[in-house]
């Protein structure tokens, strides 16, 4: 009996692993179909612009506020740590590199997944539940081209822009603490930062934020498009979007960081 239970449990684990594999396969196939529609969807560029506005411009408040506080915390922690070694003037370097290479892209992506990803997912899910996507199909319009691809591209474009704004505001926040509150010389703060931050650091942050933007948008549109057309189904899909986006962003961050070292 015990042996049979063990075999059962083992098989169940196997099935779960197979489910996960099947989902990865389904997302990849969906990505291929989506990529095929990205160029045709550019024939109506205002659809993409509208989505950059929806996902990007409407996330500005949360991004700027979070950026400011993260920058201020970096300034405080950096100052506290660096003054022990007498090098508090390097606060600007710590904040800038930390934000540009790591915190900016990652936190922007996580905030984007929570603010815009959920909206994308539930919007598409509700469109499916109210037959709007089916109606498009019946009017010989591919919903992947007309609805999904513009949102995917909008997300890819919006996240790096948001990350850039997050970084700028974050550096301002660090400056606010370091220079205005703690009395570090302004010239030292900025010149050390200028010397330390290289173009490759900016590129690293840029590539990360594009990858995170693509990952978050892909998961949001995939979950929305495949959500069960019920209130509960759309709710569950939205939850899955946030959870899987967060995990994927952190996983990708590790991979990309390792690749850039």
């Amino acid at each position, binding site marked *: 009996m015990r042996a049979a239970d063990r075999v059962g449990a083992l098989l169940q684990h196997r099935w779960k692993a197979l489910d996960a594999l099947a989902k990865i396969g389904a997302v990849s196939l969906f990505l291929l179909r989506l990529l095929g529609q990205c160029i045709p969807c550019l024939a109506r560029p205002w659809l993409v612009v509208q989505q950059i506005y929806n996902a990007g411009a409407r996330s500005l408040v949360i991004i700027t506020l979070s950026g400011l506080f993260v920058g201020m915390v970096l300034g405080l922690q950096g100052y506290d740590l660096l003054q022990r070694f007498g090098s508090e003037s390097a606060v600007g370097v710590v904040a800038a590199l930390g934000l540009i290479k790591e915190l900016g892209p990652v936190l922007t992506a996580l905030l984007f997944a929570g603010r815009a990803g959920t909206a994308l997912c539930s919007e598409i899910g509700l*469109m499916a539940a*109210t*037959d*709007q996507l*089916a*109606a*498009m*199909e*019946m*009017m*010989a*319009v*591919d919903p992947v081209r*007309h609805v999904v691809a513009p949102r995917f591209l909008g997300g890819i474009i919006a996240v790096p822009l948001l990350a850039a704004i997050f970084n700028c505001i974050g550096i301002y926040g660090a400056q606010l603490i370091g220079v205005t509150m703690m009395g570090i010389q302004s010239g030292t703060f900025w010149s050390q930062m200028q010397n330390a931050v290289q173009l490759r650091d900016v590129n690293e942050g840029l590539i990360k934020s594009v990858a995170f933007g693509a990952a978050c948008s892909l998961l949001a549109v995939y979950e929305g498009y495949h959500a069960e057309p019920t209130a509960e189904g759309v709710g569950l899909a939205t939850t899955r979007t946030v959870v899987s986006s967060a995990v994927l962003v952190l996983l990708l961050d590790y991979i990309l960081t390792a690749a850039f070292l």
Partner: protein
Amino acid sequence: MIDDDAVVTVRDVHYAIGTHVIFKGLNVQVRRGAITAVMGPSGTGKTTLLRLIMGQVVAKRGTVRVFGENVARLKRRELYRLRQRVGLLFQSGALLTDLSVFENVAFPLREHAHLPEPVLRELVLMKLQAVGLRGAADMVPAELSGGMARRVALARAIVMDPEVLIYDEPFVGLDPISMGVIVRLIQSLNRLLGITTIVVSHDVREIGAIANYSYLLSEGEVVAEGTPAELNAERKGVVRQFMSGTPDGPVPFHYPARDYFEQLLERPGT
């Protein structure tokens, strides 16, 4: 019926969702220019039949031909070309909620016909006038009543001048006035524009007044067909029950279950 005149031919179609059998050898023909009604109790697969005709789902066995083409064999592009000749009115209307009434009706034209803006505007206004909602052009779907939404969806369905127009439960949830308006619209669109019409409905009285030919589906097959008068005269039990709206009969009121008293007397958990 004359085969050459058929716009839609469904022959010996078998279809199942998982183990649940929907159709077991369905045969339906829709004649050019006629109003054909597909009736039947809820859950008999009427909407599934529409999805088969539109190529959204594929039959396990049998063929569905629209304009002589086997829908199941068409590639996506060919299917989309075919769908441009067929209009479908969804039960819910399925209007795009982020667009105004005008833009909803203009949507298929903007996607498929590259018309100058003044021509497009004229066409859209003509179609909205036909359904009596020109005055609502600037409203958004959230501001419309159920009947109005369905009329806008109808304007959208006819804006590409389809050869076939399919209505999925067009009378559900409408007040008598809106229902009368839709019945009149179905009839006038069919007569004036010569559009072949398929109406899926279980409103026997409304559909009986306008249909040229009716099919009654039950348990996966056609149980009766003919003109509304022929269907009314049919003696078969299930047909009589459906046409007269009797709650119990060959289609039972109760869903199959175990003995009532036995279940009531049983103690939970035993």
